[in-house]
């Protein structure tokens, strides 16, 4: 058995009366490309924040490569690279300064920081904009900058929250190749996205969270088996079934009969 990279035991987060995440336990092995799915407001980002040490859980524990996130936070964070939902960039730095700063904070040697920064800027196609302040960047450029900063230290565990949102096709391809390379070198990738085709293509194992609870987890084959779906069913089918949206949505779509008779359109 491979060593465990991420482990959550009984994670719970309660905001006043609302339970955002309820008794969540999961294990991700070293080198896995782990997809983490859920509808909006299901508790994905809350879970990720608790796993990386940005949000204190109401109960439960989280460990990264064997280090308890809350007992040994700096050791756990040394293993991590995070592309968070809100990006968390220093808006008044430029991309070069920001990536360099991140490299320094992860304890890299100055020579390595300089070299990797230039390589990442080139890979992310940010060279021409490297001297512009991040506050003036488009959403895609911000995401690429944040991603470059998250991987500059070649983390053992990488958390990605919607990494491909707002990024052009050329950069998506480049990023996918980087992620493949990271995974083949043993990095564990915890991947949260709404683009289910990408999740299905990249992830070795997938978990689905709904209303704060883990409702399904496993490989595609295991998920199909658990859902008693046919072997051709896509992740989208399985996901909708797991969160109980399939039937409800079909009924609702059926009610939109006024969409059928558009003026001038032939049936």
């Amino acid at each position, binding site marked *: 058995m491979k060593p465990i990279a991420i482990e959550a035991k009984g994670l719970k987060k309660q905001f006043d009366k609302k339970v955002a995440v309820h008794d969540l336990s999961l294990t991700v092995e070293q080198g896995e490309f782990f997809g983490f799915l859920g509808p909006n407001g299901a508790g994905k980002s809350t879970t990720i924040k608790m796993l*990386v*040490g*940005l*949000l*204190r859980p109401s109960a439960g524990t989280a460990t990264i490569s064997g280090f308890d996130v809350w007992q040994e*936070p*700096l*050791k756990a*964070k*040394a293993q*991590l690279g*995070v592309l*968070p939902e*809100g*990006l*968390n*960039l*220093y*808006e*008044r*730095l430029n991309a*070069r*300064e920001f990536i*360099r*700063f*991140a490299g*320094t*904070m*992860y*304890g890299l040697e*100055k020579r390595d920081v300089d070299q990797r920064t*230039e390589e990442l800027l080139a890979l992310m196609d940010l*060279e*021409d*904009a*490297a*001297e*512009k*302040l991040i*506050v*003036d960047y488009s959403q895609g450029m911000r995401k690429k900058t944040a991603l470059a*900063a998250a991987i500059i230290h070649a983390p053992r565990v990488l958390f990605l929250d919607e990494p491909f949102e707002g990024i052009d096709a050329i950069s998506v391809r480049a990023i996918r190749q980087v992620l493949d390379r990271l995974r083949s070198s043993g990095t564990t990738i915890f991947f949260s996205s709404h683009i289910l085709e990408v999740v299905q293509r990249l992830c070795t194992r997938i978990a689905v969270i709904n209303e704060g609870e883990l409702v399904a987890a496993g490989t595609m084959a295991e998920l199909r088996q658990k859902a008693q779906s046919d072997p051709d069913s896509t992740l989208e089918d399985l996901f909708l079934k797991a969160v109980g949206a399939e039937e409800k949505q079909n009924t609702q779509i059926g009610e939109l009969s006024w969409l059928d008779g558009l003026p001038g359109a032939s049936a």
Partner: protein
Amino acid sequence: MMGINTAQQRTLFGLRSRLLWRQFTGEKGRIISALIVLLIFGPMVLGISIASAVGYIQLEAPWPAQILGGVLVLLWVVWAVAPVFLGPINVSIDVSRLLVYPVTRRDMATAVLFGTLLDYPTFLVLPLFAAIVASWMWSLAWPFVLLGLPIAYLHMVIIGQIVMVGAGSILNSRRFRDLSIVVFSILGASCYFISQGVTRVLEEFVDLESAETFLLTWRPLDQLQWLPTGSIARAIEQGAAGNFGLATAWLGYSLLLLVGLGYVWLVLLDRLITGQTFSFGQADAPKAAKPKRARRSFKLKLLPEPLQSIVLKEIILTWRIPQRRIGMIQAFLLPVIFSGIYLFSGEFDGEFNGRWVGLFLIGYSYIPTLGFGSNTLAWEGQGLAMLFLTPASRRLIFQAKTVTSILLAALPIAFFTPLLFFISPPLPLLTGFFLALGFIGVGTAVVMLFSVWFPYPVNMDPKRPFAQPERRGGFIPTLMNVIGTPLLTGLLGIPLALPIALVWWFEWAWPGLILAVICAVYGLGVAWVMCGPAAEQLLKREPEILDALRAPEGD
């Protein structure tokens, strides 16, 4: 109305009403902000309204019409200039958000005009208009008042919209916003100095008698009448005098300008709708960026890595965040302003005891210390979460923040001290310099610790630079930052009292100076040592600090 989509107008007006209502039913902070605006500007506007009404009724001709012209033109100018520096006055409806819907430019314009009736500034204008109605309606000018005031209001709204739509790309640019924050703050800080300077110049160089004669014969309306709202004042004046033909001509002139400006506005709206951006001159061609090496001064190179990198980032951010850059500039400007106030206040009798300058240095050093060190984690902005995600030693982070804060606070002290040798005996001045360093150290230690214990959100929004942050820090953090910080600084600074007493009380200059050097080491040492407990606290409280500083969600 012909050609106007009334259903759309009703919807848009309803939307504007709901947005206004939600300002009062939503966040408490906004209600308080609105009340503060009304409490500050309300009495001011009421005062001007009453004063202008008294002027309209009590003063002899031609002053009532001159005042009327002044009020109407001033309002028009405020509406034209405010969007440039303070953001749009009439926020009623952001037309750019309507571009995705099938709304004609005529409907957009109408919606904006109606929407402005529900804006704060409109409410603030009402007393001024009420004063005009109350004073002039009883004269023969009443038809021109009834027609002229709505035209004046339309002129105000349209000029604001022209500036907003026409120069939107410039006004919304980050660079312009940054610059206006800095310029406005420095002008604000220098107000007293400027007014005193102007008074002195007037007293010195302007003959008061001829100035008085000029003011008595000055008829500003002779020039203002050519402006859109000035002509309305002239129309009302002529109407009151029974010259209905001239009054109608002036009103017609204003109406003609309204049609012309309205047309310009519609053309600009059209350009906005069709995606042709409007800008003054040709847009800059994108420049190819040259890779630059980070510039590091010789002195920064003395610091070990990674401390050097973090200090560099701290200094860069302090300069680039406009709200903080103001602090850097003011740190150098304030002593000049203080000196100016003293020299112009009349208390300066030409004789000056330079022995006390050193004490001034010590007292002054507290201002930049608070400015650069207070609430330091909040100024990380969005980057704070990124900082907390890294495994970097928290002690190192605080050491970097402490070094930066001390460097920046000491910079103006180091700049002014050599200059002050011209007016102060050297030993008390040097003592003051070293004690200022010690005080900066002690003060920095306290604000660093308090930034972990009592953080509070700050406004870093370049588009709303003078607004309060969306979330407040709460009672305890405010209390502790306002009262706790100086108290603890005072306590830790007690040893600094000894050299002060020696030099300025007992006049033992040399022993005082030696003790001051020791105190400087003590102060800087306290700051360095305090990085330990601050770091320890930080590691324990990171999620809570993030929560205390986060922006409100769903806004």
